[in-house]
């Protein structure tokens, strides 16, 4: 059995469940309360759980993210919502120098059981300052885990294990997924350790995550119509990366395109390519290709924004290139 819900609703249910089941859990961030959540993820929560646990914060990203870390050290299980990854730049010092390091610097005395959620990505014509995709940066930091739920099931299921995790977990929710609807099986079952194959195929492996997953799946359909059978691997967990699943996809298809919305240079795709180089070089029939964002701040104008981001047609072209079918 299953039911149809939206990504937003799935996320909202996950938070509602966490707030209901564990009194240590609380939600903190800009406009999570009276406003109802910038993206309506927490609509109605204030009335149900009260202002202590649905805590509106001032515009103080460094301060309230640091406060979330302190609250975790103090015995609570905070869900800190940073409105978007763009604003998380102001809080990076606390995330990198406190949350990620305390366990280690204290010789194992202090863990930081904190969940930080943030909206990421472009595609809504919000222009350069509001369109970053910096998951690759976060995935570089030892001491934290990084998740990217791209499906209804993951939106519904990743929060609980993230909250159960003793260490800081950063969850990236792509702004283009919020309104996506899909079937949530009643027996959904989600881990925060492995990548998942979203489409079986044999000719080429499309490795991606988050907001680029629907684009990769769309490209796979177009390619299928052209007789090219694509496997689509959803990384899901960006740190630690599931190298085994990546290697398996390479071994199976021998041709690979890595897709993400980071700028190409130094983005997460580069690490995936490096893992393939290290773990599956001899399995490759062709060099791995990357389809990422162009090296330009995301422009406002729709046609330029679309041209700056990964798209299904670019993925299709990359695959055909790999197969020598330009």
């Amino acid at each position: 059995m299953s039911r149809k819900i939206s990504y937003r609703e799935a996320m909202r249910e996950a938070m509602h469940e966490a707030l209901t089941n564990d009194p240590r859990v609380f939600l903190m961030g800009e406009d999570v309360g009276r406003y109802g959540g910038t993206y309506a993820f927490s609509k109605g929560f204030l009335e149900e759980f009260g202002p202590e646990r649905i805590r509106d914060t001032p515009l103080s990203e460094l301060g309230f993210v640091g406060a979330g870390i302190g609250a975790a050290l103090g015995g609570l299980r905070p869900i800190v919502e940073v409105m978007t990854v763009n604003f998380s730049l102001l809080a990076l010092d606390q995330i990198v120098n406190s949350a990620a390091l305390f366990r280690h610097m204290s010789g194992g005395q202090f863990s930081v059981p904190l969940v930080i959620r943030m909206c990421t990505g472009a595609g809504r014509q919000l222009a350069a300052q509001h369109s970053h995709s910096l998951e690759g940066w976060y995935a570089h930091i030892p001491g934290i885990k990084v998740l990217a739920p791209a499906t209804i099931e993951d939106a519904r299921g990743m929060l609980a294990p993230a909250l159960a995790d003793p260490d800081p977990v950063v969850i990236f929710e792509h702004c283009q997924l919020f309104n996506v609807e899909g079937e949530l099986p009643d027996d959904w079952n989600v881990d925060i350790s492995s990548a998942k194959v979203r489409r079986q195929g044999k000719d080429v492996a499309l490795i991606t995550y988050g907001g680029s997953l629907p684009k990769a799946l769309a490209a796979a359909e177009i390619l299928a119509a052209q007789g090219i059978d694509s496997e689509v691997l959803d990384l899901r967990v960006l740190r630690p990366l599931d190298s085994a699943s990546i290697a398996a996809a390479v071994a199976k298809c021998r041709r690979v395109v890595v897709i993400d919305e980071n700028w190409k240079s130094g983005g997460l795709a580069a690490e995936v390519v490096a893992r393939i180089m290290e773990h599956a070089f001899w399995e490759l029939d062709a060099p791995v290709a990357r389809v990422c964002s162009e090296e330009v701040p995301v422009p406002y104008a729709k046609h330029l924004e679309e041209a700056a981001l990964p798209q299904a047609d670019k993925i299709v072209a990359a695959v055909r290139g790999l197969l020598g079918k330009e």
Partner: protein
Amino acid sequence: MAKKSNAANKVEHRAPPPPSGAVPWKKDFAHALLLDMLRIRRMEEKSAELYGAGKIRGFLHLYIGEEAVAVGALHALGPEDNVVATYREHGHALMRGMPMDAIMAEMYGKREGCARGRGGSMHLFDAQTRLFGGNAIVGGGLPLAVGLGLAAKMQNEDRLTACFFGDGAVAEGAFHEALNLAALWKLPVLFCCENNLYGMGTAIERAESQTDLVAKAAAYNLPALSADGMDIVAVHETMQEAVATVRQGKGPAFVEFRTYRFRAHSMFDAELYRDKEEVEAWKARGPIHTFTARLKAQKKLSEKEFLALDARAQAEVEAAVAFAEAGSWEPVEDLLKDVLTPAEATP
């Protein structure tokens, strides 16, 4: 009308009585400022309409209700001065002298826009009029204003930098660091806080332990003033006073304008956080109709003159829309332009 930093200045959601009293200005000047408020109002109303029609996209933050602040304040500056603004900056751009055509085309994402459609509504820039941007990072403009002030001081330029930001920005570390640096280094920067009582859905008393922003700013050892941001006379005269203070070269100043946002924060806002009564009470203090009424009471404005001014404003808006509609799209081949500065353009 201008409260000194020592005066108690607690914030009130209850709307004070509407601005009233004689307007101490010559008719021409009063009409010019009324016209500017109308230009902003009509431009913003049209923008909302165009957003609904899908012509303008992304985030759109309207200035409706706050017109007296940009108009009254920016009429106290000169062309040599610098302005740093926020994502709610259409009015500021217009007041600095940016053609409405360029603003509208930018919001359309057309090549004829001030930034060729790269920036959109939140990023209006104009080198000509020294507008150093709309900025979509709350508080992001404050450190930049400090640097602009530093450059003016080190180059002995008689140039003031006016930095606009909202009440919500006051909680950011950037506010603290910027006010301290400007006061410490005695820079010609005028910090202009547009206090509309809310940062998105968060009322100032839920964001600030000290809601008296004048007292807060004064703690950095700089002159701090406050004015009724719905009263264009109070705004302009307080701004003039603050500008004169800064021009003395003894350092920065801070001025708070108490205003109110009549529309939603952006086009995605259910306004669950404030009630109709409060909004209505503040609308009764609307900067345009109260100013109009005062002028009429003084016989400095007739209904006919008002309609003529409003018609001019609307005509300008229609022309700007036509301009934007007739505009072109930047070719996709130019996507990578202006990431770095081409050698020939090197300053």
